[in-house]
Every structure is written in structure tokens, then in C-alpha cells.
């Protein structure tokens, strides 16, 4: 069985991600030890919280450099996606820069944060195998990553169209919470484990 590591840092509810993996029969390792992360077959980078604080925490432990240099399949979730971009308007934060994308705050014509179930479309990745176009997944966020054809593997619209999932080489990231997105979310996690 492949070894799945969840990166431990000072961000939100990792317990839900652990339980979601448990439901798929996986016992992940939650750790911030560099060697353990490097040895993993798959790495999951969850996150709920504030970008600046999270980046500071990662930098203090030199996890920022480590993450950028990982070569195994890597999945960022929610704040994880935003931290993998170049820059976030949240606290004017320089992020990891895996993706050359900017993270911006939603305009205020709709309620912010976006909380609830929205659709994914223009699906372009094996992580969406057997996931129908316009499937609903659960989002909670105030900031979004812009669309860029080279990296966007799913789009969502809330006030404007943005990247709800992105990919570059071994790095995957989703803005929604697959661990809270019912059977669709579970399938996406399973696909990530199986097809990347």
C-alpha cells in the first residue's frame, strides 16, 4: 500500500482529511518531519486559515523549500492551493510559487466568503475520472486563484470564473474540500491516490 503523508502545520481541520482517507482504507501519516515527507508516495497539503500566518509557519520550519522540491504526487486543498500560488492578496503574502498565479479576494457583489456547494466544469485531469461535468463540491473561501489555461484543470464561477483546481507536473491543488464533498469528493481523493 502506498504511503500517504499529510503535512502537519498550523492550519485548520486536518482531522476531516484523515477520516476521509480512512474511509478509503488508508492510514495517512500526519507529520512535519522533512525526511518522512520526502519518503512519502503521495503528499497531501490541507489547510484552513490565514495565508500570511501559514507561510510564516512553513518558512520557520523550512517546509517552504522542501515542498517546492518534492517530486511525488502532491495535493493541496483549499488554503493549500492558495499557498502553492505565487502571491496572495490575503495579508499581501508571498507564497510558495509552485504556480505562477495570483490569489485575489472575491469582489463583494456576492457574499464573501463563498460558503457551500458549487459546480466544477471544464474538467481536465485523471483526478476527475468518473466525475461528471457540473458536479457539486463544497467550498469555503474568500480568495481565489485566477484562471490560466496552462494550469487550470477545473473551473468554477462565483461572481467571476476562477481556477477551482490546478495542476503543474506532480503538483495538484483543489480549492474545494474533497474531504467534505460527499461521494464526488471521495472519488476525487481516490483518483488522486490511484491515477497520479
Amino acid at each position, binding site marked *: 500500500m502506498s504511503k500517504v503523508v499529510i503535512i502537519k502545520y498550523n492550519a*485548520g*481541520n486536518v*482531522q*476531516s482529511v484523515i*477520516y*476521509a482517507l*480512512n*474511509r478509503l482504507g488508508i492510514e495517512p501519516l500526519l507529520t512535519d518531519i522533512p525526511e518522512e515527507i520526502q519518503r512519502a508516495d503521495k503528499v497531501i497539503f490541507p489547510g*484552513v*486559515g*490565514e495565508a500570511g500566518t501559514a507561510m510564516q509557519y512553513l518558512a520557520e520550519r523550512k517546509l517552504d523549500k522542501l515542498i517546492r522540491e518534492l517530486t511525488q504526487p502532491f495535493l493541496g486543498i483549499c488554503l493549500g492551493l492558495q499557498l502553492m500560488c505565487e502571491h496572495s492578496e490575503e495579508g499581501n503574502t508571498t507564497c510558495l510559487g509552485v504556480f505562477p498565479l495570483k490569489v485575489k479576494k472575491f469582489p*463583494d457583489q*456576492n*457574499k*464573501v*466568503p*463563498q*460558503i*457551500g*456547494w*458549487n*459546480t466544477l466544469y471544464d474538467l481536465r485531469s485523471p483526478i476527475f475520472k468518473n466525475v461528471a461535468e457540473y458536479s*457539486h463540491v*463544497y*467550498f*469555503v*473561501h*474568500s480568495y481565489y486563484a485566477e484562471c490560466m489555461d496552462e494550469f487550470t484543470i477545473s473551473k468554477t*464561477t*462565483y461572481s467571476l470564473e476562477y481556477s477551482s483546481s490546478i495542476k503543474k507536473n506532480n503538483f495538484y491543488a483543489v480549492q474545494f*474540500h474533497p*474531504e*467534505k*464533498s*460527499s*461521494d464526488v*469528493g*471521495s472519488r476525487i481523493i481516490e483518483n488522486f491516490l490511484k491515477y497520479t
Partner: protein
Amino acid sequence: MLTKRIIPCLDVKDGRTVKGINFENLRDAGDPVELAAIYAKQGADELVFLDISATLEKRKTLAALVRNVAREINIPFTVGGGISTLEDVSVLLQSGADKVSINSAAVKTPSLIDELAKQFGSQCIVVAIDTRMHNNEPIVHTHGGTRPTSLNTIEWAKEAQSRGAGEILLTSMDHDGTKSGFACSLTATISSSLHIPVIASGGAGTMQHFADVFTIGNADAALAASIFHFKEIAIPELKRFLQHHNIPVRL
């Protein structure tokens, strides 16, 4: 398109689900984890667990319940009922709750909202407001809706938002348990005064009531308990009804 959310609320006491009619005459409607799994399967968008027990073991029982629910179900859920400290919140979030709702404690110590939002992020802090009309003015009530305060509900909702609440759960005590419809007018006023989502609660009796609270009331989500527990309205049927009325829902 972001959909409107349907949220069953499970009142729990000593680890069992109950629902009071006007918060009295509690009736047992089953095991919370089992009920949660059924609702998740039926298409509930989120769940709320409200702990109404007042025992000393309450905190441990609730954390255990949260762990059991989080293990079993794959949709988001909120936990509320007597939460008053950073430590309470920390334990519940670490146990697997997605959000916590605070009510009386926030009224008593409004800065608690700021502290919780700063520590855990606004997205997991729901401020629950129990409101009742007094001389045509909506007034915030605490302690399960039994104690009136001097706060105007609309003003308090705005303050909660400015202090960092991520959502407002608005329960109309005038409507709760009556099955005569949600407080659409007050919900609309509050929803349009805020930039955070509003969950309407209290008064659901028919499917049309849900349609009304989403259209007239401009609610982002609607919460109900007994009509779901006693199978008066089934969630799949409710969602098809709403879709038929051009209200975006997840099917």
C-alpha cells in the same frame, strides 16, 4: 452556481437526538450518528448538531459525538450549544467539526467572536442568534431563547459580522415550532444588511416555506429539525421541489 443549502438540525442531549416543540416536551428521534448518515445520503448539504445537555460530562460527550460523526459522514457539519471558550472550540474543531456556533456566550462577551475568528478563521465561526419580536422590534434572546436582551437583532448581526463571524444562524423564536413558515421579512432585512451568509431557522412546515425563505427571505441556507426527523418532508423531494421553482440546489 452556488446552491442554496438545506440543513437538518439535530438537537442532542446526552448523546441522543431530541427535538423540542418550542424547546419543550422533548421527543427522542434517534441516534445522532445514524441520523446524520441518513441525511448525508439523502442529500443534506450540511448538518448542525446542537447540544442541549447541561451535565458536567457534556464537553467529553460532545467531543466524542463529533469524532463519531466526522468518521462516518462526508459533508460539513457545525456544532453548537453552550460553547463559551477558545478551548471548547479548539477541542471540537480538532475532533473533526467544520464549524462551531456560539450564541449566548457571544452576547455576554462579544470579543469572544474576535478571538475565535483570529484564532481559527472566520469560516468556522457561526454566530447563532435567537430573536423574538417585542413591540415590533426584533430583540436578541439568549439561553435557548428564554432571556431577552437589550440588543436589536439587526444591529447585533452587523456587529457579529464586523467582529469576524463567518455566518449568521438566525432563529426566529416567534416561528420556531409553529410550522407556519420562516421569518422571511426579518431574514431578508438581515441578509441584505450583511456580506456573510445567513442561515434561516424556525418555522419550516411545508416545502413552499423553504422556497419562500430563499426567494422572499434571501436566505443562503435553511435549517429545520422535526419536519425532517419525523419524515414530514423528505430532503430529495424538497430539493426537486426547489429546483422546479428555479432555486439552485445540489441534486
